[in-house]
């Protein structure tokens, strides 16, 4: 399906990542947002609040992030495409409702423009330290989809991709920005609506008098684990609960139902990892060392990589555009061929653990940590590359 022209601001713009993300949401067809102000994310909802009255959308500033993160889910069941936007402290408050969205299979996008933490931390300065919270922050077991843009252009592009994935897999999707990409100004090209592909919401084909169960795979092809949605007012009378439930949506609190439900919820992501995962590689074919990074740090690595290459070293580069699910298949393949991975990230060692896990002790894995507040000095990354080269 092509994008609805109402939301698409076709043209070449000079935008920061926050504003570009807002335009991405509008282009994706989002028509509802609820938020609570927090630096460095607020510009996203400020732009939505200004633009929605011209595109047929609604923004409401709620009383806190708990409210914002559940108001959007009410809106989705009311038929909207919705997002909320926050940063560190607000991201923590939204965790219960991330779980509610996963459990009830409510599609929406949650943006975290990462800043330094823990607690109030560095409100105006960058970090990439919520990456494990993105993966495991809500209680219980689940799989999550998280994307990490490296530029304002990518904030736009990946916002659309985040909405598309959320609809396709009927699940919340996280857009893990950081203060740098959120606030840096660059050229952002917004294509014309017919060049933007939108994944339409899959609604049940059942009529109002037919029996519809919100978690039944009856209308799915073999192997498709994503049941079609409904919304209020259709006469389907769904019951939606965060309790462990059966296909009817009715509470079914026992070990067997738990195993069946959680099994499907994780498998709908795990079985489609190849479709969900996007990575970018450069020079990995014959590399000795591969630098693995994401978000703004993936750009900060570039001078270090160029310098090492100029000195004749075979340094490859792999950028995680999708961070969760983690591209373990590819990292495992590469782990069999290279002598080391270098993993720069703006935290004290999060994604590096995944690289280590997938490496299973074969190549060396060297994290390049940074507590946040500023991006890395490329020199540190260069030194790490030289160090693992021995």
């Amino acid at each position: 399906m092509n994008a609805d022209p109402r939301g698409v601001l076709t043209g070449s713009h000079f935008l920061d990542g926050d504003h570009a993300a807002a335009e991405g949401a509008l282009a994706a067809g989002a028509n509802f947002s609820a938020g609570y102000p927090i630096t460095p994310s607020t510009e996203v909802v400020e732009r939505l609040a200004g633009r929605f009255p011209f595109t047929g959308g609604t923004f409401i500033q709620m009383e806190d992030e708990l409210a914002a993160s559940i108001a959007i889910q009410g809106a989705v069941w009311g038929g909207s495409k919705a997002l909320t936007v926050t940063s560190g402290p607000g991201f923590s408050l939204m965790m219960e409702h991330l779980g509610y969205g996963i459990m009830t299979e409510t599609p929406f996008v949650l943006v975290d423009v990462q800043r330094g933490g823990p607690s109030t931390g560095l409100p105006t300065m960058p970090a990439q330290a919520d990456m494990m919270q993105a993966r495991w922050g809500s209680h219980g077991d689940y799989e999550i989809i998280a994307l990490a843009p490296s530029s304002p252009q990518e904030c736009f592009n990946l916002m659309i991709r985040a909405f598309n994935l959320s609809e396709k897999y009927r699940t919340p999707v996280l857009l893990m920005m950081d203060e740098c990409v959120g606030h840096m100004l660059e050229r952002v090209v917004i294509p014309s609506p017919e060049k933007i592909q939108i994944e339409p919401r899959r609604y049940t084909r059942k009529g109002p008098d037919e029996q519809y169960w919100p978690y039944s795979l009856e209308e799915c092809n073999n192997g498709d684990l994503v049941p079609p949605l409904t919304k209020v007012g259709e006469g389907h009378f769904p019951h939606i609960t965060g309790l462990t439930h059966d296909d009817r949506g009715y509470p079914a609190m026992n070990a067997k139902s738990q195993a069946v439900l959680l099994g499907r919820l994780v498998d709908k992501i795990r079985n489609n990892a190849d479709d969900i995962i996007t990575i970018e590689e450069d020079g990995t074919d014959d590399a000795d060392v591969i630098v693995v990074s994401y978000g703004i740090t993936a750009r900060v690595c570039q001078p270090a990589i160029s310098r090492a290459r100029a000195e004749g070293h075979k340094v490859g580069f792999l950028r995680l555009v999708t961070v969760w699910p983690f591209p373990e298949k590819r990292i495992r393949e590469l782990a069999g061929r290279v002598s080391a991975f270098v993993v720069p990230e703006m935290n004290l060692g999060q994604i590096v653990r995944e690289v280590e896990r997938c490496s299973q002790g074969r190549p060396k894995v060297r994290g390049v940590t940074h507590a946040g507040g500023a991006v890395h000095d490329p020199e540190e990354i260069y030194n790490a590359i030289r160090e693992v080269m021995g």
Partner: protein
Amino acid sequence: MSESYEATVTDPVSAPMTCDSNPVEEWLRMDRMPHIWCPGCGIGTSVNCFTRAIEESSLDRKNIAIVSGIGCTGRVAGYLLLDSFHTTHGRALPFATGLKLASPKTKVVVYSGDGDLFAIGGNHFIHAARRNLDMTVLCVNNFNYGMTGGQVAPTTPEFAIASTTPYGSVERPFNLPYLAQSCGAVYVARWTVYHVKQLQRSIREALEKPGFTFIEMVAPCPTLFVRRNRLGDGLAALESYEENAVIKNGADTRECDLGMGGPIVCGKFVDIDRPSYLSNQVAHLRKVLGDRYVMPDAWQGVVQ
């Protein structure tokens, strides 16, 4: 049925004491019966009043959504054959807010407990009332947290016993009608589940009135609050409601505090008109943006 009970059934117009099916069955998910509520619990009575109120009302069943939080009362959503949402603890109101904004044609009813709406969800309550978005909030006040074993709630009367105040609570409880009125609710009433007819009528009025409408439904939790405070059983609690109720429509809500064994002021206290969030929003954006304002598709023809 005991003989003495039969002897008291003398009123020829009273409803038959037995029937083949539950008269409000068509509103219930009968495939979920039996429900979880204890014998004598007041929640079921409130549901009975609610279903009769919607039956009598002009509302189209397809356009009613029920949203609950977590708790014994929170389970109401799961038993009603309506679009029904069992959300998270305390967050029924913000969920309902999003739902209403996305689908204004839907009559959104929030049905939840006193702890859910006024402890963990208290902040949402005051803001929802202030915004005056069209929705009806029905609160079962059983003076404690039923679901988790009878802990103290923001409604527990002073000196009453709860599992976490084993020697009596010393906090001043909320006066819910006063709170609702001061935050901007356009309709505020209180009834006990003894007052089924009045409660039913009041729910219907609240459902049919635009804006944020609120009803406190005083109900026994015989398993916990009633037993722990040695107030007898569910029936004894209802008898005490009959005895202590003071029906005073239009009462000053400042005088509606509830204490242990004191009067229970019941009635309709507030019924005013105030522009609702949706109509205000549309009128204002039309004024400032003129023809450039694009109303959300789902609002067309619903919001004036």
